[in-house]
């Protein structure tokens, strides 16, 4: 059952050192405020699962919180490479996390299998790709009807899934709209679920019947954090902060400037900072 609670309390209760954590959001609704709170609370030895580890994981990696990375595309969207991720892989700074690398199709299928309670996903993939050679989690299954050899990957079953959504109802049901990514699958695949939301409304009685709604009994904690997806965007609420993505390329280029930025913008502030950051970007409210 869902509790509506503060982000600090929710992270303290739900995310522990050593957990496998999926912060999901596919270019949209990236749960940055929850990531910052996790950084502030100093979690260590995390397995960070995410299809697109853009800025959100660059920061966590740079802070040395990752024991393992599971991903399929690591870039700063529209800008270039991730400099903290490069530093950890190329130079081992601040540590050298294990890497499990997939394609998008594999991770999307693996989340889907996790949500579906299956031990593995099968799909037509990795044909001719060297990823099979460097990732022992990529195996095969033979179709018992046609003999076709299909790729198989283990289902993703994170200890915790963390997403950002537009709305929760008072009861704790959650609505995700627009580019919905793999959020539903990540939530249903996880043991525990933390959702930050733009707003809490009375109920969802007036919604179209076929939207992406997660019932309250699939969610552990809902935390209202307006602007919590900054610098990504929340469809219907605020636009992407492109300047922040460009700025990150400079900030993250150097270890000292990175650490200074993290202190000023993450460690020394709280979740309430996000509302201010999206104020000039708002399209509603």
């Amino acid at each position, binding site marked *: 059952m869902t509790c509506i609670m503060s982000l600090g309390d929710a992270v303290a209760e739900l995310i522990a050192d050593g957990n496998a954590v999926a912060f999901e959001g*596919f*270019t*949209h609704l990236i749960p940055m405020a929850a990531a910052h709170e996790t950084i502030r609370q100093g979690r260590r030895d995390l397995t960070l699962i995410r*299809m*697109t580890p853009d800025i959100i994981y660059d920061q966590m990696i740079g802070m040395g919180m990752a024991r393992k990375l599971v*991903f*399929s*595309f*690591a*870039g700063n*969207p*529209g800008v270039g*490479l*991730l400099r903290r*991720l*490069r530093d950890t*892989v*190329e130079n081992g700074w601040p540590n050298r996390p294990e890497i499990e*690398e*997939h*394609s*998008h*199709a594999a991770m*999307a*299928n693996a*989340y*889907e299998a996790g949500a579906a309670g299956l031990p593995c996903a099968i*799909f*037509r*993939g*990795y*044909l*001719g*790709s*060297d*990823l099979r050679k*460097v990732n022992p989690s990529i195996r095969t299954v033979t179709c018992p009807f046609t003999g*076709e*050899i299909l790729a198989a990957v283990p289902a993703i079953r994170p200890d915790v899934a963390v997403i950002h959504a537009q709305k929760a109802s008072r009861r704790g049901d959650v609505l995700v709209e*627009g*580019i*919905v*990514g*793999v959020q*539903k*699958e990540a939530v249903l695949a996880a043991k525990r679920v933390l959702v930050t939301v733009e707003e809490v409304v009375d109920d969802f009685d007036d919604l179209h019947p076929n939207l*992406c709604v997660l019932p309250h009994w699939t969610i552990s904690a809902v935390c209202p954090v307006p602007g919590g997806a900054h610098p990504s*965007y929340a*469809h219907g609420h605020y*636009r*992407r*902060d*492109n*300047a*922040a*993505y*460009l700025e990150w390329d400079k900030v993250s280029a150097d270890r000292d400037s990175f650490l200074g930025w993290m202190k000023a913008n993450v460690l020394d502030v709280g979740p309430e900072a996000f509302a201010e950051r999206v104020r*000039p*970007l708002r399209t509603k409210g």
Partner: protein
Amino acid sequence: MDFTPDEMMTIAAARALSNDDVCFVGIGAPSAACNVARLTHAPGITLIYESGTLGTAPEVLPLSIGDGELCETALTTVSVPEMFRYWLQGGRISVGFLGAAQLDRFGNINTTVIGPYTHPKVRLPGGGGAPEIASSCGEIFITMRQSVRGMVETIDFVTSFGHGTGGEARRKLGLTTKGPTLLVTDLAVWRPDPDSKEFTVRSLHPGVSRAMVQDSCGWRVRFAGDLEETPPPSHLELQTLRDLYARTKAAHRAQGAA
């Protein structure tokens, strides 16, 4: 009207798309080419971005494959698992458009690492949707700027399979799709040889010489016997591309906060 090599590349790529195509626009791929096609000769083209947006018609170019603009102009937006399962793997996509950090003569693409995988010199973003775009789409178009670092004899890592070692390599792997059928660079238009599957220059962009193509390519270049000149951009093509870039720049400047 004068034009840059990048403009020629984008426009030559756009020309290869048709009105009936369902086109999967991968990360790093030329959104610009797909949208120029849509805004000129192929108004009915269906553009799909891997973020789940089906049938988008953005006014400005997206910064990422998941911009709000893509969702707002799309016919519908589905989940990412559905996108990869029903739409890509389901065989619904006629053309996949890919970029490449490293490319070999058989259209195999590396977007993973420069150097050895475990101790890379440069860690690149990785495959994203490309490995399965490369295998599931009807055919693959590749665009990239030429350079001896990018177009190499042997790529460091096969992220996305093209024609492997050439010839019947795809068929032997069980692939029934065509794989790379077009490479458009800033200097030339290339097509695979029907038998060997090696990329062969079919037309040089206006003002480009054979030597320019060879000097910026890391493998020994084959030129078609009936080598042509790429028709220069038309006024409409160039204006459409420039207007698109101008709208994009204005929109993104307005959007960037303070």
